[in-house]
């Protein structure tokens, strides 16, 4: 009997309608993930009693293996913020931060986090989070992280900060100079501060063991996201993908539990793929995969389900997304290397999606569109996030010109509910789906060709109407 893969826990109720309870129970990955997150949360809430040290740090360019090597516990402020968003409670936290003096214009993750601090540091599950013993500022691919922790330094006076500056891979390469710079920072600032705070001596063997495990998890997650190249795709690589990247981004990369989780998840997704099944949505298994999309940019968290529904109602499946690469870009073969521990941590940080140059982002997305046989390319532009958003319209234009693929552009925010306009997004998506539908009728799927030249020599641009609507032209 075939199985239905377990949907993410936040969709549990809705998905049960589609899957028989006995079948859901068989999905080990879901249970494993629940257990992992539950254990971490328990460790955090009891950290004061057990004496475990708590590190606040960020997802992109995280030093998960190093934190594990020092037996410290990670807290990821962005993950707290997105969870507040999903629980529809981020709005009031953001407003509190604005009352404190933060501008309406700045990243809402920061404001959500500051708002949480101002309200007693109660985490999204309702329990108080322990204060940091160390602020580990490894800020890959975004300047706002630097500003964010400078603000946290004021809110947690006296807490040491270990700073790891990740050079930007502006020319599409990671040079030896860049690696040396990062390794020296690890040796001279980050590791000594972690030794000081944890009271433990750095153990290179222990780090290497965690790096070996990280590499195994990275193998499995790469294989999982590779399965979406199959038509129909067995999972949605964006809406469900954000759930699947949870463990590797939330401090488990480098832990045995993550290897077990991703191996198990791979088995489940591979089985779905073998059976030719479509992704599970909050309303059950998708009837038919009508459109395959590549999506650039983070999702909206405050209206996550409504947002997803706009896609699955139309039979649209996201087969690849850049957002699932913010915590590491493993598609190109990068793996943490136990034999070159610090160097591989450096290379990992520099290779995360938002740290690669704009031309490389275009190349990567072009590869996704071709390799995953996408029918269209969509950008969800996030008001908060300059790191992702600045330059996205050029990315779209480039891809349209190179591939002739239908493209579209919507706007929302991560956790600020004021910036989610259902009607605008729906209108835009409806036109997009219509465009893809027409294209498929005429040329069939995956038959991209360059747009025709007009008599004036200029290329017809499918994005012009979008820009005109924006009032940009």
């Amino acid at each position, binding site marked *: 009997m075939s199985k239905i893969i377990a949907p993410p826990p936040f969709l549990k109720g809705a998905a049960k309608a589609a899957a028989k309870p006995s079948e859901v129970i068989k999905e080990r990955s879901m249970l494993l993930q629940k257990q992992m997150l539950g254990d971490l949360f328990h460790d955090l809430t009891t950290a004061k009693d057990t004496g475990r040290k708590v590190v606040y740090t960020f997802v992109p360019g995280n030093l998960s293996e190093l934190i594990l090597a020092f037996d410290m516990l990670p807290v990821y402020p962005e993950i707290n913020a997105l969870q507040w968003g999903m629980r529809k409670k981020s709005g009031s936290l953001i407003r509190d931060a604005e009352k404190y003096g933060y501008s309406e*214009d700045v990243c809402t993750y920061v404001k959500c986090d500051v708002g949480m601090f101002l309200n007693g540091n109660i985490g999204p599950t309702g329990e108080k989070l322990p204060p940091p013993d160390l602020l580990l500022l490894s800020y890959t691919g975004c300047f706002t992280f630097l500003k964010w922790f400078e603000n946290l330094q004021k809110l947690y006076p006296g807490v040491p900060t270990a700073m790891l500056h990740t050079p*930007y891979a*502006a020319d599409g390469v990671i040079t030896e100079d860049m690696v040396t710079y990062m390794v020296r920072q690890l040796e001279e600032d980050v590791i000594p501060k972690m030794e000081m705070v944890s009271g433990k001596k750095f153990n290179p063997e222990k780090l290497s063991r965690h790096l070996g495990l990280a590499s195994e998890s990275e193998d499995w997650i790469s294989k999982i996201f590779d399965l979406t190249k199959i038509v129909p795709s067995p999972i949605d690589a964006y809406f469900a993908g954000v759930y699947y990247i949870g463990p590797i981004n939330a401090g488990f990369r480098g832990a045995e539990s993550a290897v077990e989780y991703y191996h198990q998840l791979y088995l489940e997704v591979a089985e779905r793929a073998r059976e030719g099944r479509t992704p599970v949505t909050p309303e059950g298994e998708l009837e038919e995969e009508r459109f395959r999309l590549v999506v650039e940019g983070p999702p909206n968290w405050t209206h996550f389900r409504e947002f997803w529904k706009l896609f699955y109602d139309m039979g649209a499946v996201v087969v690849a997304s850049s957002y699932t690469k913010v915590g590491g870009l493993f598609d190109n073969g990068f793996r943490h290397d136990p034999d070159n521990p610090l160097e591989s941590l450096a290379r990992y940080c520099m290779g995360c999606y938002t740290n690669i*140059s*704009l031309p490389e982002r275009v190349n990567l997305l072009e590869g996704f569109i071709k390799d995953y046989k996408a029918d269209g390319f969509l950008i969800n532009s996030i*008001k908060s996030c300059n*790191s992702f958003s600045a330059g996205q319209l050029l990315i779209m234009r480039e891809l349209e010109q190179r591939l002739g693929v239908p493209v579209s552009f919507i706007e929302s925010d991560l956790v600020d509910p004021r910036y989610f306009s259902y009607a605008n997004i729906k209108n835009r998506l409806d036109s997009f789906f219509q465009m893809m539908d027409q294209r498929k009728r005429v040329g069939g799927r995956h038959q991209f060709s360059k747009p025709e030249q007009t008599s004036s020599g200029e290329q017809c641009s499918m994005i012009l109407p979008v820009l005109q609507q924006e009032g940009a*032209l």
Partner: protein
Amino acid sequence: MHRTFEKLISECEHIAFDLQFSHAKAWKRASSERFLAGYLPIYIPREVIHAMGGLPVGIMGTGDRMQIIKGDAYYQSYICHLPRGVVELAMSGAFAEFDAFIFPSICDVIRNLSGMFQIFKPDVFVKYLDLPQNFLPSVGGAYYRREIETTVEGILSHRSTVPFENEVWVERLNHSIRLYNENRALIERIVTIRQEYPWRVSAVDWYNVLRSGLAMPVEEHNNILYELEAYLQDDRGRPLDNIRVVISGAFCEQPPVGLIKTIELAGCYIVDDDFMLGSRWIEGDIAEDTSDPLGAIVDAYLQHSTFSASLYEAAPASGTKVERLASLVKSRKADGVIFAAPSFCDPALLDRPELQLGLERAGVRTIGFQYSENTGQFKVIKEEVGAFSDSIKLWGSGADGSEPDSHMWLPTVIEDLTAIA
């Protein structure tokens, strides 16, 4: 004196806001050896470009002097204005004779703009200059040195010229360091005169003179500064009953000149600011006449950088940003701080709450608002700044320990100025 004060200022204004960079292009045309390297805010080591025989040209956006059409098509409404103008300039051919572009690492917008230029201008050398956030000489210093060296190598390879012999390079770089030291010293002297006698040259006129220096050879700008300094020895203008303020947060996208004028008209002398911060980035002199001038430039960055939103706070030795801003207020004998930052500028706006709070705790009065380089109406700002100025005149600055009026103690934030305008 060769020209009148008024002529000096108007010539500077013309060069500062000539969006075709004609002055710089004319300089380049005089010799085939010369080249132009455009750079974005805030700081690059201009000495290095100068020593290579090039002219570093500051690209500060288009202000309110150009209608942006093409540039807007590349940016969402929630991204600051500066890159739109830069793209507009690129698309309209204003950079036609430029040989290189340098994008210092100050924020994600500038960072991603460097990638856009790689796509727009594949034949021109584009360098993202990753200024280190680690300030240990063996770590950040070594990395920064390589960053500068690869910039030099990149420009040379694109211009197919032979690299300098080492002794020639040392001599030339030392010469450039001397010229820029002179430039910074002159600027500092004029700012100090303005601190005592702000009516002798208005904030706008001084802004024009300073900004013109981004588009002309440093030798020429030094002469202008000497001329201005000489003019400022004599009393000019008429002192007004204005308060004295420091402007903070305007280091990248520049405020429109109308805004600077408005602040003065509303009763404030601007006695210090962070407009064109790159020109004043290094505090004091870079070591001259050393056998390793590149090392001297690196050391100056590590040890004598000013404070800025783009720089990690814990790094520079001389205190936190709040402490440094408070000490600037004190040394300039300012009555308060105006936080003026571009809309959607994460670096400036994320610094503001803690800076504002810190200054208030230190007894310094503040207000804050946002602008865009093309903001055209300043009525609301004039009222707010006027009220700020009046209240300080009435109740004191708070710097003397006196209790200011409680409601004015709180920061006034004009929300979304551009929307109002």
